[in-house]
Protein backbone atom coordinates (compact mmCIF):
# COMPACT_ATOMS: atom_id res chain seq x y z
CA UNK A 1 0.00 0.00 0.00
CA UNK A 2 2.81 2.37 0.90
CA UNK A 3 4.44 1.71 -2.48
CA UNK A 4 1.16 2.44 -4.27
CA UNK A 5 0.80 5.81 -2.48
CA UNK A 6 4.43 6.59 -3.29
CA UNK A 7 3.83 6.09 -7.02
CA UNK A 8 0.58 8.07 -6.94
CA UNK A 9 2.35 10.94 -5.22
CA UNK A 10 5.20 10.83 -7.68
CA UNK A 11 2.81 10.92 -10.64
CA UNK A 12 0.89 13.84 -9.15
CA UNK A 13 4.07 15.76 -8.43
CA UNK A 14 5.33 15.10 -11.93
CA UNK A 15 2.08 16.33 -13.45
CA UNK A 16 2.25 19.54 -11.43
CA UNK A 17 5.82 20.16 -12.55
CA UNK A 18 4.84 19.53 -16.17
CA UNK A 19 1.84 21.81 -15.93
CA UNK A 20 3.93 24.54 -14.38
CA UNK A 21 6.66 24.28 -16.99
CA UNK A 22 4.22 24.15 -19.90
CA UNK A 23 2.19 27.09 -18.72
CA UNK A 24 5.34 29.16 -18.40
CA UNK A 25 6.07 28.89 -22.15
CA UNK A 26 4.10 31.39 -24.22
CA UNK A 27 2.04 29.86 -27.02
CA UNK A 28 3.80 31.99 -29.62
CA UNK A 29 7.30 31.14 -28.45
CA UNK A 30 9.88 30.56 -31.13
CA UNK A 31 13.35 29.13 -31.19
CA UNK A 32 16.18 31.07 -32.72
CA UNK A 33 17.17 29.67 -36.09
CA UNK A 34 18.52 31.36 -39.15
CA UNK A 35 16.05 31.33 -42.01
CA UNK A 36 16.25 32.51 -45.61
CA UNK A 37 14.42 35.69 -46.67
CA UNK A 38 10.64 35.41 -46.47
CA UNK A 39 9.44 38.65 -48.06
CA UNK A 40 7.36 38.51 -51.22
CA UNK A 41 10.13 40.47 -52.92
CA UNK A 42 12.82 37.94 -52.06
CA UNK A 43 10.93 34.67 -51.71
CA UNK A 44 8.18 35.50 -54.21
CA UNK A 45 10.28 34.72 -57.30
CA UNK A 46 11.44 31.47 -55.67
CA UNK A 47 7.85 30.59 -54.82
CA UNK A 48 6.78 31.30 -58.41
CA UNK A 49 9.56 29.07 -59.72
CA UNK A 50 8.66 26.27 -57.32
CA UNK A 51 4.98 26.60 -58.21
CA UNK A 52 5.77 26.37 -61.91
CA UNK A 53 8.33 23.57 -61.74
CA UNK A 54 7.36 21.47 -58.74
CA UNK A 55 3.87 22.52 -57.70
CA UNK A 56 1.64 20.77 -60.22
CA UNK A 57 -1.35 19.11 -58.62
CA UNK A 58 0.08 15.64 -59.21
CA UNK A 59 3.38 16.53 -57.52
CA UNK A 60 3.96 18.95 -54.65
CA UNK A 61 0.72 20.84 -55.23
CA UNK A 62 -0.89 18.46 -52.79
CA UNK A 63 -1.67 18.68 -49.10
CA UNK A 64 -0.66 15.04 -48.71
CA UNK A 65 2.99 15.80 -49.46
CA UNK A 66 5.64 16.77 -46.92
CA UNK A 67 6.75 19.62 -49.16
CA UNK A 68 3.60 21.50 -50.07
CA UNK A 69 3.68 24.17 -52.74
CA UNK A 70 0.86 26.65 -53.11
CA UNK A 71 0.20 28.98 -56.02
CA UNK A 72 -1.87 29.84 -59.03
CA UNK A 73 -0.45 27.04 -61.18
CA UNK A 74 -1.42 24.40 -58.64
CA UNK A 75 -2.95 24.13 -55.20
CA UNK A 76 -4.78 27.20 -53.90
CA UNK A 77 -5.16 28.24 -50.30
CA UNK A 78 -8.55 29.95 -50.43
CA UNK A 79 -11.58 27.74 -51.00
CA UNK A 80 -12.88 30.18 -53.61
CA UNK A 81 -9.73 30.16 -55.75
CA UNK A 82 -8.93 27.78 -58.58
CA UNK A 83 -5.65 26.52 -60.09
CA UNK A 84 -5.54 29.24 -62.72
CA UNK A 85 -3.37 32.36 -62.91
CA UNK A 86 -5.32 34.13 -65.66
CA UNK A 87 -8.07 36.49 -64.56
CA UNK A 88 -9.69 36.07 -67.97
CA UNK A 89 -10.22 32.39 -67.14
CA UNK A 90 -11.49 33.05 -63.63
CA UNK A 91 -8.18 32.71 -61.83
CA UNK A 92 -5.87 35.06 -60.01
CA UNK A 93 -2.19 35.43 -59.23
CA UNK A 94 -0.51 33.71 -56.30
CA UNK A 95 -1.40 35.52 -53.08
CA UNK A 96 0.98 36.65 -50.29
CA UNK A 97 -0.66 34.05 -48.04
CA UNK A 98 0.21 31.31 -50.54
CA UNK A 99 3.83 32.45 -50.74
CA UNK A 100 3.95 32.31 -46.95
CA UNK A 101 2.39 28.84 -46.85
CA UNK A 102 4.97 27.54 -49.33
CA UNK A 103 7.78 29.25 -47.42
CA UNK A 104 6.68 27.72 -44.13
CA UNK A 105 6.38 24.28 -45.68
CA UNK A 106 9.82 24.49 -47.26
CA UNK A 107 11.67 26.00 -44.31
CA UNK A 108 9.81 23.76 -41.88
CA UNK A 109 10.97 20.54 -43.55
CA UNK A 110 14.37 20.59 -41.83
CA UNK A 111 14.50 23.79 -39.79
CA UNK A 112 17.79 23.12 -38.03
CA UNK A 113 19.51 22.04 -41.24
CA UNK A 114 18.05 25.06 -43.00
CA UNK A 115 19.47 27.23 -40.24
CA UNK A 116 22.89 25.67 -40.72
CA UNK A 117 22.80 26.24 -44.48
CA UNK A 118 21.63 29.84 -44.13
CA UNK A 119 24.15 30.67 -41.43
CA UNK A 120 26.80 29.32 -43.80
CA UNK A 121 25.57 31.77 -46.47
CA UNK A 122 24.25 28.94 -48.63
CA UNK A 123 27.64 27.31 -49.15
CA UNK A 124 26.35 23.79 -48.52
CA UNK A 125 22.86 23.57 -50.04
CA UNK A 126 23.26 19.79 -50.43
CA UNK A 127 22.70 19.46 -46.69
CA UNK A 128 19.03 20.06 -47.42
CA UNK A 129 17.03 17.05 -48.55
CA UNK A 130 14.93 19.05 -50.99
CA UNK A 131 18.06 20.26 -52.79
CA UNK A 132 19.52 16.75 -52.90
CA UNK A 133 16.27 15.40 -54.34
CA UNK A 134 16.03 18.13 -56.98
CA UNK A 135 19.67 17.57 -57.94
CA UNK A 136 19.13 13.84 -58.18
CA UNK A 137 21.49 13.02 -55.33
CA UNK A 138 18.68 11.29 -53.48
CA UNK A 139 15.72 9.23 -54.70
CA UNK A 140 13.06 11.54 -56.12
CA UNK A 141 9.94 10.34 -57.87
CA UNK A 142 9.94 13.52 -59.95
CA UNK A 143 13.43 12.73 -61.24
CA UNK A 144 16.45 15.01 -61.57
CA UNK A 145 15.21 18.56 -61.99
CA UNK A 146 18.21 20.80 -61.60
CA UNK A 147 21.94 20.76 -62.25
CA UNK A 148 24.31 22.67 -60.00
CA UNK A 149 24.86 26.08 -61.56
CA UNK A 150 21.90 26.09 -63.92
CA UNK A 151 19.32 28.91 -63.58
CA UNK A 152 16.95 26.80 -61.51
CA UNK A 153 19.73 25.83 -59.15
CA UNK A 154 20.90 29.43 -58.91
CA UNK A 155 17.36 30.50 -58.09
CA UNK A 156 17.29 28.20 -55.07
CA UNK A 157 20.86 28.61 -53.88
CA UNK A 158 20.88 32.40 -54.21
CA UNK A 159 17.82 32.54 -52.01
CA UNK A 160 19.48 30.24 -49.47
CA UNK A 161 22.48 32.57 -49.56
CA UNK A 162 20.24 35.52 -48.75
CA UNK A 163 20.38 37.30 -52.09
CA UNK A 164 17.72 35.99 -54.44
CA UNK A 165 18.72 36.06 -58.10
CA UNK A 166 15.35 37.13 -59.46
CA UNK A 167 16.39 36.70 -63.09
CA UNK A 168 17.32 33.07 -62.51
CA UNK A 169 13.91 32.41 -60.96
CA UNK A 170 11.83 33.91 -63.74
CA UNK A 171 9.93 31.10 -65.47
CA UNK A 172 10.01 32.95 -68.77
CA UNK A 173 13.80 33.18 -68.58
CA UNK A 174 14.41 29.54 -67.81
CA UNK A 175 11.33 28.12 -69.56
CA UNK A 176 11.31 24.89 -67.62
CA UNK A 177 10.06 22.41 -68.39
CA UNK A 178 11.13 23.21 -71.92
CA UNK A 179 9.21 21.17 -74.46
CA UNK A 180 10.82 20.95 -77.88
CA UNK A 181 9.13 22.68 -80.78
CA UNK A 182 6.59 20.34 -82.39
CA UNK A 183 8.03 18.49 -85.35
CA UNK A 184 5.52 16.84 -87.66
CA UNK A 185 7.99 14.10 -88.52
CA UNK A 186 8.00 12.86 -84.93
CA UNK A 187 4.24 12.49 -84.67
Amino acid at each position, binding site marked *: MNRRWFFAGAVMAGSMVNAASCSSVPSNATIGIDAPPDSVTEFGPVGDYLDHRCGT*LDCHGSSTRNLQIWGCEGM*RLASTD*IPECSRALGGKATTPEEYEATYRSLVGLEPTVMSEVVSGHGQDPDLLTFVRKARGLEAHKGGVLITPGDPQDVCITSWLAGQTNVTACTPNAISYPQFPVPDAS*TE
Partner: protein
Amino acid sequence: MTARLLVLAACLLVGCVDATHDEQVQALGGETPGVPRGPLHRPGQPCLTCHGGLGPASHQFSVAGTVYAVRSQSAPAVGAQVQIEDINGSFYTATTNAAGNFYVPIDTWQPTFPTQMQVSLGSLSQQMATHAGRNGSCAGCHTSPQGPTSPGSVYVALSASDLPEGGL
Protein backbone atom coordinates in the same frame (compact mmCIF):
# COMPACT_ATOMS: atom_id res chain seq x y z
CA MET B 1 7.69 -28.15 -42.19
CA THR B 2 4.65 -27.87 -44.46
CA ALA B 3 2.97 -25.60 -41.92
CA ARG B 4 6.01 -23.34 -41.84
CA LEU B 5 6.04 -23.11 -45.62
CA LEU B 6 2.34 -22.24 -45.61
CA VAL B 7 2.94 -19.46 -43.06
CA LEU B 8 5.85 -18.14 -45.12
CA ALA B 9 3.73 -18.19 -48.27
CA ALA B 10 0.91 -16.37 -46.48
CA CYS B 11 3.33 -13.73 -45.17
CA LEU B 12 4.75 -13.17 -48.61
CA LEU B 13 1.24 -12.86 -50.02
CA VAL B 14 0.17 -10.34 -47.38
CA GLY B 15 3.38 -8.43 -47.88
CA CYS B 16 2.48 -7.90 -51.54
CA VAL B 17 -0.88 -6.31 -50.74
CA ASP B 18 -0.90 -2.52 -51.19
CA ALA B 19 -3.60 -1.35 -48.82
CA THR B 20 -3.51 2.23 -50.09
CA HIS B 21 -3.97 1.11 -53.68
CA ASP B 22 -6.79 -1.21 -52.66
CA GLU B 23 -8.53 1.69 -50.93
CA GLN B 24 -8.16 3.84 -54.05
CA VAL B 25 -9.69 1.11 -56.18
CA GLN B 26 -12.53 0.59 -53.72
CA ALA B 27 -13.22 4.33 -53.63
CA LEU B 28 -14.03 4.27 -57.35
CA GLY B 29 -17.13 2.17 -56.65
CA GLY B 30 -18.78 -0.32 -58.94
CA GLU B 31 -19.48 -0.25 -62.63
CA THR B 32 -22.36 1.85 -63.92
CA PRO B 33 -25.30 -0.48 -64.62
CA GLY B 34 -25.62 -1.18 -68.33
CA VAL B 35 -22.06 -0.19 -69.16
CA PRO B 36 -19.79 -3.21 -69.53
CA ARG B 37 -16.13 -3.14 -68.61
CA GLY B 38 -14.19 -1.83 -71.55
CA PRO B 39 -13.23 1.34 -73.38
CA LEU B 40 -16.52 3.11 -72.60
CA HIS B 41 -16.63 2.48 -68.88
CA ARG B 42 -16.01 4.83 -65.97
CA PRO B 43 -15.62 8.18 -67.80
CA GLY B 44 -14.12 10.87 -65.60
CA GLN B 45 -12.39 8.46 -63.23
CA PRO B 46 -8.61 8.25 -62.73
CA CYS B 47 -7.93 5.44 -65.22
CA LEU B 48 -4.46 4.54 -64.00
CA THR B 49 -5.69 3.66 -60.54
CA CYS B 50 -6.65 0.30 -62.06
CA HIS B 51 -4.78 0.49 -65.38
CA GLY B 52 -1.49 1.72 -63.94
CA GLY B 53 0.16 -1.60 -63.34
CA LEU B 54 -1.00 -2.40 -59.82
CA GLY B 55 -4.27 -3.86 -61.08
CA PRO B 56 -6.89 -5.05 -60.97
CA ALA B 57 -7.24 -4.19 -64.68
CA SER B 58 -5.19 -6.35 -67.02
CA HIS B 59 -4.63 -3.63 -69.66
CA GLN B 60 -1.99 -1.15 -68.60
CA PHE B 61 -2.02 2.46 -69.83
CA SER B 62 0.61 5.19 -69.66
CA VAL B 63 -1.82 8.08 -70.12
CA ALA B 64 -5.62 8.00 -70.11
CA GLY B 65 -8.58 10.22 -69.40
CA THR B 66 -11.88 11.67 -70.47
CA VAL B 67 -12.57 14.78 -72.50
CA TYR B 68 -15.86 16.65 -72.24
CA ALA B 69 -17.42 18.89 -74.88
CA VAL B 70 -18.09 21.91 -72.68
CA ARG B 71 -16.51 23.02 -69.42
CA SER B 72 -18.45 21.82 -66.36
CA GLN B 73 -20.92 19.83 -68.45
CA SER B 74 -21.23 16.06 -68.76
CA ALA B 75 -21.58 15.57 -72.54
CA PRO B 76 -18.47 13.82 -73.87
CA ALA B 77 -16.27 15.19 -76.62
CA VAL B 78 -16.47 12.34 -79.13
CA GLY B 79 -13.69 12.02 -81.67
CA ALA B 80 -11.48 14.65 -80.04
CA GLN B 81 -7.77 14.51 -80.70
CA VAL B 82 -5.61 14.42 -77.58
CA GLN B 83 -2.03 15.35 -78.38
CA ILE B 84 0.49 14.50 -75.69
CA GLU B 85 4.08 15.70 -75.78
CA ASP B 86 6.74 14.58 -73.34
CA ILE B 87 9.83 16.43 -72.18
CA ASN B 88 11.95 14.72 -74.82
CA GLY B 89 9.74 15.98 -77.62
CA SER B 90 8.09 12.63 -78.27
CA PHE B 91 4.45 12.94 -79.37
CA TYR B 92 1.43 10.70 -79.26
CA THR B 93 -2.06 11.49 -80.45
CA ALA B 94 -5.06 9.58 -79.13
CA THR B 95 -8.70 9.91 -80.16
CA THR B 96 -11.61 9.96 -77.73
CA ASN B 97 -14.37 7.38 -78.08
CA ALA B 98 -18.14 7.64 -77.62
CA ALA B 99 -17.71 8.13 -73.87
CA GLY B 100 -15.07 10.81 -74.31
CA ASN B 101 -12.46 8.35 -73.07
CA PHE B 102 -8.99 7.96 -74.54
CA TYR B 103 -6.12 5.77 -73.48
CA VAL B 104 -2.54 5.05 -74.45
CA PRO B 105 -1.51 1.41 -73.99
CA ILE B 106 1.82 1.36 -72.19
CA ASP B 107 3.37 -0.95 -74.74
CA THR B 108 2.47 1.54 -77.49
CA TRP B 109 3.93 4.72 -76.03
CA GLN B 110 5.33 5.68 -72.68
CA PRO B 111 6.19 9.35 -72.11
CA THR B 112 9.02 10.74 -70.05
CA PHE B 113 7.40 13.15 -67.62
CA PRO B 114 6.70 16.02 -67.48
CA THR B 115 4.16 16.10 -70.28
CA GLN B 116 1.94 18.75 -71.80
CA MET B 117 -1.31 18.19 -73.64
CA GLN B 118 -3.69 19.73 -76.08
CA VAL B 119 -7.19 18.61 -76.97
CA SER B 120 -8.88 19.61 -80.19
CA LEU B 121 -12.12 18.89 -81.94
CA GLY B 122 -12.88 20.52 -85.26
CA SER B 123 -11.97 24.18 -84.91
CA LEU B 124 -12.01 24.01 -81.11
CA SER B 125 -8.79 23.54 -79.20
CA GLN B 126 -7.60 23.80 -75.61
CA GLN B 127 -3.99 23.76 -74.49
CA MET B 128 -3.22 22.60 -70.96
CA ALA B 129 -2.02 25.67 -69.07
CA THR B 130 0.54 23.85 -66.95
CA HIS B 131 2.11 20.42 -67.29
CA ALA B 132 1.64 16.98 -65.78
CA GLY B 133 4.51 16.16 -63.46
CA ARG B 134 4.15 12.42 -63.11
CA ASN B 135 0.53 11.25 -63.22
CA GLY B 136 -0.85 9.74 -66.42
CA SER B 137 -4.44 9.89 -65.20
CA CYS B 138 -6.09 13.12 -66.28
CA ALA B 139 -8.64 12.69 -63.51
CA GLY B 140 -5.88 12.42 -60.95
CA CYS B 141 -6.04 16.24 -60.97
CA HIS B 142 -8.96 17.10 -63.27
CA THR B 143 -11.88 16.28 -61.02
CA SER B 144 -15.27 17.91 -61.05
CA PRO B 145 -16.28 20.39 -59.77
CA GLN B 146 -13.52 22.92 -60.23
CA GLY B 147 -12.01 24.00 -56.91
CA PRO B 148 -8.81 24.94 -55.08
CA THR B 149 -7.16 21.62 -55.92
CA SER B 150 -8.75 20.89 -59.28
CA PRO B 151 -8.99 22.80 -62.54
CA GLY B 152 -12.21 20.91 -63.30
CA SER B 153 -12.71 18.34 -66.02
CA VAL B 154 -10.89 18.39 -69.37
CA TYR B 155 -12.96 20.14 -72.05
CA VAL B 156 -12.72 21.45 -75.59
CA ALA B 157 -15.22 24.35 -75.43
CA LEU B 158 -15.43 27.01 -72.73
CA SER B 159 -19.17 27.42 -73.20
CA ALA B 160 -21.99 26.00 -75.29
CA SER B 161 -21.92 29.14 -77.45
CA ASP B 162 -18.44 28.12 -78.58
CA LEU B 163 -19.82 24.97 -80.17
CA PRO B 164 -20.62 24.97 -83.87
CA GLU B 165 -24.29 25.14 -84.72
CA GLY B 166 -25.97 21.80 -84.11
CA GLY B 167 -23.39 20.82 -81.50
CA LEU B 168 -20.42 18.57 -82.00
